[in-house]
């Protein structure tokens, strides 16, 4: 039987029903193909959505739009006047050597800081999943650094790297590698990588726990079938397990990838972008420019660059991943 809400066949032996008028759908309803809502339901929806929406508009959308506006001005961060300078701030970026240096450092951070925790996390998750004894203990130990604020991680690692009192240099001295001992955070060749190592240490536990959760959903019959077919551990991981946890792997990678372009706190605490600008990343340079050098306009333009880079890299990565699948 076919019928619509407006024209119904009369039931046998029954009385004729009043035709129910088709409810109008709003713009969003039409756009998203949502069912028409009763007025009461509409109020319900507004009631529940409005607080979150207001918070989002006030603390995300408005500041974002305002930052875009500020990026076209030469505002110093305190004065009432904001002079429109057009694209001058964006043009200035291309001639600013520190921006290029910071961008390059961000690229290093994104590559190493994304790949390392994901690979380490994946390997450890697979090991724990394969039934290692004390799996729960290891999982807890790996995850512990992640619950520490990055500022605390930075302070702890500062002490580890300390050129005079740090355990790293003391350990190197103790094993006869005195030549390698140095001021890790004060040496332009090692500062960025030393901070990266601390960040990786703080991140990989998260990857382990998330991937371990994803591994619980892996179809064991496929794994067993692969074993019967003679696939080794690496082949099973590569061809059976990883494809099944690919969506979660993509999510974890995307999170760390986006974080790579907006990294700030751990770099700021450990080196402040120094020595010189050797560990400067875009976010620390933006902070210094906007808040320490009173160039809020230029700082806003830099923050738009970070936003664009994070957005583009995340979209590109997700698209590539989807294409592979």
């Amino acid at each position: 039987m076919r019928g619509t809400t407006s024209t119904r066949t009369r039931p046998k032996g029954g009385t004729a029903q009043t035709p129910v008028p088709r409810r109008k759908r709003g713009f969003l309803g039409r756009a998203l193909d949502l069912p028409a809502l009763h007025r009461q339901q509409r109020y319900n929806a507004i009631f529940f959505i409005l607080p979150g929406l207001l918070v989002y508009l006030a603390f995300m959308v408005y500041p974002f739009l305002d930052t875009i506006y500020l990026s076209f001005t030469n505002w110093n961060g305190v004065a009432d006047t904001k002079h429109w300078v057009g694209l001058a701030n964006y043009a200035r970026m291309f001639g600013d050597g520190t921006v290029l240096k910071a961008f390059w450092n961000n690229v290093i951070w994104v590559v190493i800081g994304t790949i390392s925790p994901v690979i380490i996390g994946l390997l450890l998750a697979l090991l724990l999943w394969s039934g290692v004894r004390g799996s729960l203990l290891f999982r807890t130990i790996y995850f512990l650094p992640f619950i520490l604020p990055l500022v605390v991680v930075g302070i702890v690692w500062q002490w580890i790297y300390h050129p005079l009192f740090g355990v790293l240099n003391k350990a190197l001295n103790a094993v006869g590698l005195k030549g390698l001992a140095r001021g890790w955070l004060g040496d332009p060749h090692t500062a960025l990588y030393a901070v990266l190592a601390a960040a990786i240490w703080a991140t990989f536990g998260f990857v382990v726990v998330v991937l371990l959760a994803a591994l619980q959903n892996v179809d064991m019959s496929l794994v067993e079938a692969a074993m019967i077919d003679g696939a080794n551990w690496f082949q099973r991981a590569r061809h059976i397990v990883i494809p099944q946890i690919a969506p979660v792997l993509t999510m974890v990678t995307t999170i760390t990838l986006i974080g790579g372009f907006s990294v700030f706190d751990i770099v700021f605490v450990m080196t402040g972008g120094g020595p010189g600008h050797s560990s400067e990343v875009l976010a620390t340079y933006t902070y210094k420019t906007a808040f320490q050098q009173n160039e809020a306009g230029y700082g806003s333009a830099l923050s738009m660059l970070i936003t664009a880079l994070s957005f583009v890299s995340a979209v590109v990565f997700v698209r590539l991943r989807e294409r592979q699948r």
Partner: protein
Amino acid sequence: MSKLMRGVSRKEFLKLGGAGLAGAALLGVAGCGGGAQGNKKVVRYFTGTSETTALERVAQEIQVDRFEKQYPKYDMQREAIPPDDVRTVIKTRLQSDNPPDVFSYDTGPGFGGVLADAGLLYPLEKAYKQKGWDIYEWAKQRATYNGKVYGVPDQVEEIVVYYNKDLFDKLGFNEPKTVDELRKIADEFKGRGKIPLAFGDKEQWEAGHLFSMGVSNVLGRKGMDDIFYGNGRWDTPEVTKTINLLFRDFVKGGYYPNGANAINYNDANTLFYSGKAAMLPTGTWLVSEIVQTVRDFEVGFFPFPSIDGSGISPPAGVGTGLFVAADAKDKEGAITFIDYLLQDDTARLVMEKFNTIPAHPVDTRGLKVPGLFKQVLTDLSQSSQDRDFGYNIDVLTPQNFNEVMYSGFQDVINGNRSAREQAHALQAAWAKAKKAGHVLTQG
């Protein structure tokens, strides 16, 4: 089914919204009760924390308890945060609906000057006249922007080299008068396993102080004035030589701890306090901490010695100053508080407890202060006929210059930038600041 689950009618929705708004309004009224608590007027003082917790307690006693005792009609609310953070938050605090009435902040054009330009400071010329504040004229100039006095400098500082007297005496060394003598002393200490100079540059401003000492000597007061107020330049052979001496030669000579760029100010101080380092280049603001911390040896200080026959002009000047917010709720209370701090008995108490030097004449007779601080007082009281004082550069220069100075010296220390390149970078930053009108003006 509960009422909420069933749905919210338009009437109920409006009721709920109205109740929420009314609640928010009530909260707002309660939170913005103005500057009075009971019968007392609230004065909000925003400042940086003192060097040690003991000093922070003393600050609370003098700036809050004693003030309230003398002026019972005021309720002093003192808020102290780490000094470096004051620079970050002060702008937003002053632009908020509830700004501090009075606050402590750096006096240079890149600090107080920026706030004055933005109309965030209350001019104090009238208060100076009414209260008869007798701040040294040169110090007053540091808090004068566009011809108006906006601040009250509260501390005079000098940058010197502290030394372990016991170690010097043991090896028969006197205070060095020339850099060659300093090198001999440093080489000797190095040979004996001591760190000659406890210098760390992790926060970057420490190198600015070292540079201030060296360049003040080679250029003298006149040469420095020529740069700040005239057409003098930073990219001269004298300046380049000084940068090379302090940030290349001394690094290569092993006079600083290994990895100086990774050692922070407190760690460098600790090296000196623990006797691992023989000398410590820093400012007289540290006297109180040194007196409290160092128990095992006697500490003396000397100005940075002559460089290749130059004069000796130790950097001296104003540290922070007190400012009144343009939108202060109780300007009278803020001015009363500043006046209280400038009174002779309060200033003497501050000198005794903090070992800092006020920027106005104070009767120092009978002061109970440690020997090291007496030495500082004597040194600073020398007339300009005996000695020209130089400048602590970073409090007088705008932030774009300081950024180049700070990060650039780290690069020179690492060997990533030559002294000549750094001198040129300083000059370029200075020219940019001058063009933007962000530099000091005289008079």
